């Protein structure tokens, strides 16, 4: 199959790469571009570990041909904060012990970011709905919900570096 040269915009940076039509976005992000923060879990759009933001919206990168992500803005977990300046959500996940094994955390954080970008004061129900496509087998979700609430509070009080 003929490879095509495409440009992907990931975390504000442009990459020119060769992809085949059957290459999935999750594999291209991880294997070609090294954004291994994006996890591949079920591969069938159920678990949300591969969640990325496409033009600001959470999508499952395991169900998307890389060709389809052309001309879109992709945000992966690597684009959320830096080790020196964590995103308030990342800070809140640490402070509230919302991460155990960590496999779901990248997708969970990006789903939470999309929620807070659209709704700065979510209710608990809205938080639970926003992360309902992200499975966590460790935490039981309580600490994650608590962390998202804390991040929302920190961000609206101007505390932290969004």
């Amino acid at each position, binding site marked *: 199959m003929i490879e095509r040269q495409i440009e992907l915009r990931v975390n504000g940076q442009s990459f020119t790469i060769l992809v085949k039509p059957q290459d999935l976005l999750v594999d291209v992000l991880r294997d070609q571009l090294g954004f291994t923060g994006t996890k591949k879990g079920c591969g069938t759009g159920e678990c949300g570990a591969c969640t990325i933001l496409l033009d600001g919206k959470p999508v499952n990168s395991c*169900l998307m041909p890389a060709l389809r992500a052309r001309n879109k803005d992709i945000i992966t977990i690597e684009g959320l904060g830096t080790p020196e300046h964590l995103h308030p959500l990342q800070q809140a996940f640490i402070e509230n012990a919302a991460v155990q094994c960590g496999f779901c955390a990248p997708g969970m954080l990006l789903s939470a970011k999309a929620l807070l970008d659209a709704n700065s004061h979510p209710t608990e129900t809205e938080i639970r709905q926003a992360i309902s496509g992200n499975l966590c087998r460790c935490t039981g979700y309580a600490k994650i919900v608590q962390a998202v609430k804390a991040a929302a509070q920190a961000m609206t009080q101007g505390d932290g570096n969004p």
Partner: protein
Amino acid sequence: MPSFEYSTPTTVDQAIALLNQSGASALAGGTDLLIHLRAGIVAPKQLVDLSALDLNYVRKDDGIIRIGAMTTFAEILDSDVVRRDLPCLAESAAEIGAVQTRNMATLGGNLCSAVPSADSAPPLLVYDARVKIAGSDGERLVPLEQFFVGPKKNALKPGELLIEIQASVPLPRTGARFLKLGRRKAMSLAVVNVAARLTLGQDHRRVENVRIALGAVAPTPRRAKRAESVLQGSDVSESLIDRAARAAADEIAPISDLRATATFRRESSRVLVKRALTHAWQMATGETKPND
């Protein structure tokens, strides 16, 4: 994953020309197709990506609501027109998958999948929706009821494309409700899904028009016409709704599978039809608003 060609046409005519080539398959939101590709259930030679077509819209003109086939469920949920005029469709959109699924999956894709549990089907059936199909010989309009021809089988001929979903703005004194029973709150396939619409006469009692549709309880999403006839033309009452719900449970043909037994599906259908009709009745008389 097996290899295939990939094209991104920018007009419906181009898309149809490509879909007429052998082994071509349309790619809408991809939330079903990509899974089937990986599992080897389908093996197209070419994917025709529909995302660059101008099929992403919700419009209302002359009392007709037109929804482009590539409109995602997230966009349907965000649409003021859908929430106001077709609230039952918005209720079903909210029940589909999770946020990620709704940002990708499209209304046209859900209907074309023609699975018995397709959540958008019962609401559109109760709104008497039509689907606009484009092919090399032009366009045709098909009642949605005739679009589902069997489990995972739709009425599209090879090389045809579903491009638009149409529904008329409901009359005044109309209420409608979608209810879904799943095994969990998100990412769940329906055990049973039900939609009901009631339009009352000027006396706020007589049933001018009624539609009841169910999913996951027959080879295709389907209307419960015997249940509708229990209500049609009569004065609505609790006991009549009860009778209609029993009639609906009698006329469906559920199967037992890993999600539920046939018996459970039948009894759940009765309960959901009763609840949906009761809510639709309250909404039609102005006692409750959409999405309450």
